[in-house]
Structures are given as structure tokens and as C-alpha cells.
């Protein structure tokens, strides 16, 4: 294949690399994929049910908040916990350098990760939403914007997780950070609850962090009149996405 070797740039080369990397990553994912889908639904629909047990009798507004927060709860562990810990595991096992040394441009490898982890979030989101609406007998007003909202939230989450996994050298630190993210998301984030319940300082923190904004864009696409200023949330998510990509570009350009 001398011609292929000569052609190591240009769009066809990129596309071929992208396709191979997607196949490579999908094949390495088949071991954990079924388990993970299960955990994802547990985090989303499971938590929606559990929050209901805690609240006892459920006013319709609370039920709507929990149900429309559940998809976001199922997106976060995939991109922000699983992806960085998989990269961390590669570092521990010593296969990290091998993956980086594959003969594809590094941005192509990154985009294949983004694609895979964005699309993998979708089935979990759908199942979670169906289970939660069924549990609380809700009728949601689904707008076409839900596609944009879920994909943006998932892409941002995967990008932040990717940058985190690659930028933090010690996998143990990555592990601590991902555990902390899950803890904060489940207990201290206005995802399934109105941000008005939060004390002022914590609410301000959440106006900068991405979690509340993820919940906002998804909720806005499923309900009417619950989320004011959803445009701001889109902007904040876009900013997080851009920031994550800058970090990713820096990590990828680094030579050791």
C-alpha cells in the first residue's frame, strides 16, 4: 500500500482515520457497554424513583422537575466519570502510550471519542425519560429542540471528561475528581430540584458550573414555561465546550 502511506494528510485520510478510531473504540467498549447502560439507567431513572421515596407525597411541579432532571443525571456519569476513568485506566495499565501512538492524527482520535460518548448517552436518556414519565404519570411537551439539548449536553460532558482524563497525569487524582463529581451531582446540584431551594452562594456557584445549565436546556425542551433565560444556559454550555476543547488541544499538542 505505498499510495496509502504517501497520503498521510488531507480529508480522506482524516475520514479513514476517524472511521478506524470509532471502530477501535467501539470494539474496546463492548466489554463494559452493557453494564454501563444499566448503571446509566439506574443513575437516571433509579434516582428519579429514589428522590420520590425521599419526598413522600409529590406535588406535580416536583415530579416534573425530577422527571426532566433525570436525563441529565444519566448523561453526566458517562462523559464526566466513565470517560476520564477509562483514560485513567489506560494510564495505569500502560496502554495509554500505545493508543496515542496509533497512526491517526490526534484530533481525529479525540473527535471519535466525542462522537462515541455523545451517541452512547442517547439510549440511556430515552429509557430514563420513558421510565420517569411512566412512574410519575406525566405528560411532557417534547419539542424538537430536545435533540439539540441532549446532544449538546452529552458532547460538552464527554469533552470535559476527555480533557480531564488526559490533562490529569495521575489516574488516582482522576478517580478522586470523578467520585467528587458524582457526589456533588447527586446531592448538591439543582438538576432534579429548583435552584431556588439552594442557598445564595451555592446557587451562584451553579450558575458557573455546567450541571444546572445542562438540566436547564434539557428541561426547556421538555416543558413549557419552567425555564426562563434558556439562551444563557446554551451559551454557558457552549463556553464549557469551547474551554474543554482548548484544554484538549493543548494536551494533544504536548510532546513528552
Amino acid at each position, binding site marked *: 500500500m505505498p499510495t496509502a502511506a504517501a497520503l498521510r494528510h488531507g480529508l480522506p485520510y482524516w475520514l479513514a482515520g476517524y472511521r478506524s478510531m470509532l471502530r477501535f473504540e467501539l470494539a474496546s467498549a463492548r466489554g463494559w457497554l452493557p453494564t454501563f447502560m444499566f448503571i446509566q439507567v*439506574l443513575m437516571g431513572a*433509579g*434516582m428519579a*424513583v*429514589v*428522590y420520590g*421515596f*425521599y*419526598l*413522600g407525597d409529590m406535588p406535580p411541579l416536583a415530579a416534573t422537575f425530577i422527571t426532566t432532571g433525570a436525563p441529565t443525571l444519566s448523561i453526566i456519569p458517562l462523559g464526566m466519570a466513565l470517560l476520564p476513568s477509562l483514560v485513567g485506566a489506560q494510564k495505569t495499565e500502560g496502554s495509554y502510550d500505545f493508543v496515542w501512538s496509533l497512526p491517526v492524527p490526534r484530533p481525529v482520535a479525540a473527535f471519535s471519542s466525542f462522537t462515541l460518548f455523545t451517541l452512547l448517552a442517547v439510549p440511556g436518556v430515552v429509557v430514563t425519560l420513558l421510565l420517569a414519565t411512566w412512574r410519575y404519570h406525566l405528560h411532557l411537551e417534547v419539542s424538537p429542540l430536545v435533540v439539540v439539548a441532549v446532544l449538546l449536553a452529552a458532547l460538552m460532558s464527554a469533552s470535559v471528561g476527555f480533557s480531564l482524563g488526559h490533562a490529569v497525569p495521575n489516574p488516582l487524582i482522576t478517580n478522586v475528581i470523578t467520585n467528587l463529581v458524582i*457526589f456533588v451531582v447527586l*446531592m*448538591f446540584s*439543582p438538576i432534579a*430540584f*429548583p435552584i*431556588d*431551594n*439552594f442557598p445564595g452562594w*451555592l446557587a451562584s456557584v451553579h450558575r458557573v458550573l455546567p450541571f444546572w445549565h445542562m438540566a436547564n436546556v434539557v428541561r426547556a425542551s421538555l416543558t413549557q414555561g419552567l425555564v426562563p433565560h434558556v439562551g444563557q444556559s446554551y451559551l454557558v454550555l457552549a463556553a464549557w465546550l469551547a474551554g474543554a476543547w482548548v484544554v484538549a488541544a493543548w494536551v494533544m499538542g504536548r510532546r513528552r
Partner: protein
Amino acid sequence: MTTLAPARVALRSGPGYWWDSYRGMLRWQLTSMRLWLPVTAMVQAISGAGFVLAMGLFFGTVPPRAALFVSTGVLVLTLVIVGLILGPQLVAAQRMEHTYDFLWSLPVPRTTAAAAWLTVNFIIGLPALAVALGVALLRYDLPLHVSPAIVPAVLLTLYTGTMIGYAMAHAIAKPMITVIITQATIFLAFGFSAINFPLDQLPGWLAEVNEWLPLYPMANTVRAALTQGVAEEVARSYLVLAAWSVASTALAAGVLGRRG
């Protein structure tokens, strides 16, 4: 020193030997966990306190009854988490690192290892209990009525939780299975057990299941000793809990006595 050794070897039975071995094992366990122990105690205190505080975010204004349930429920979780979750995970890690057989081969009666582990759990559990209770009292104005029943309730809860974990950890040979079971347990304990919320907020069949599993009786007995008119059918809970403690002790004894 060499002249003393034969005399000690001769005495490998009797209460004196057992007591010496117990003290040795306790020192051994506390020393081998000297890094792990303070970190765990801290994480436990923070997550217990965090959980109590997080309830305020769930509800906006927390109804007094919910605050009472969560505050007393978190106490119970703090008591059992080390014995029921972290203990089995430690044993699983020993199996993966292949230090398990070495520990079993130490020249002490195996019951002293179990007794030392129980002691460690009391050493961790009781201060964590105090911290969680303190935070709950500070955050919510709780109408607590502490009765003397708190002593048997806490002791029985700590003992049963630790023994169930201990029996499970040593009975299951594959460490991965232990890890999966403990992770499922923690999810079920926080989400689907009537520990932090009243039993009647669960669907009927799940409430029925809860009455026979150990976690709800633990919460119910401890709650009965701390409050008035909140816990129901406490005698039944004591019975179920006692049955679990006997069963787990028997299983642990069976595993301890096993050769091979």
C-alpha cells in the same frame, strides 16, 4: 529472648492465650489501617453531614418529620457502612493482592481476628455517630428523646452490620463478586431502604421486603431509641435483627472453622 520462646509455644490454648492473640490482632489491624482509618473516618463524617445538609436542597424547607427521619437514618448508615461495605471491600482487596492467605495463616485463633475487627468497627462507628448526630442537631431543631434503649439498639446494629459483612466477605471467594454486591448494597441502602424516610413512602411490596431485610430494622430500633412516637413495631424489628445477627454469626463461624 530465645529461652522464652518454647514456654510461649506450649501455651497455645486457654483464655490467656486468646486474650493475648486478640490484643495482637487488634494492634495488627489498627496498624495496618493507620492510613486508611483516619481518611475513612473523615470521609464518613463529611458524607454523613453532607447528606443531612443535602436534604435541605431537596425540599427547600424541610418538613420536621422528614428532617427527623433523615437525621436518625444517617446515623444508622454511618454505623454500618464500615462493617457492611468497606470491610468486605478490604477483604476483597486482600484476596486480589494475595495477602489473604497470609493473614489467615497468622498463629492466632481465628475468632480473635473477628473480635478485633468488631472492635475496630466500634472504634470507627461510635465517633462517626456522634458527628452525624451533632450536625443534625445543629442544622435542624430536632425533638429528640434519647432513651436507654439506645445502647442495645446501637450495639445490635453495629454487631449485626459488621457480622453480615464479615460473613459475606469470607464466604465469597471471588473478590469481584464481593465488590459488586457491596456497591449494589450501598445503592439499595440509600435509595430503596426505609432508613432515611418512613416505610410507608415505599410501594407496598417493597415495604414488605424491607421488613425482612436487616437495614430497616436497624433504622427502626435506633430511631425508636432516639425519638417518641415515630418508630412502629419496634419489638418485631428487634426480633428480625436478632435473627440476622444469629444467622450471620453462624455463617461467619462456619467460614472461620473451614479448612482449605
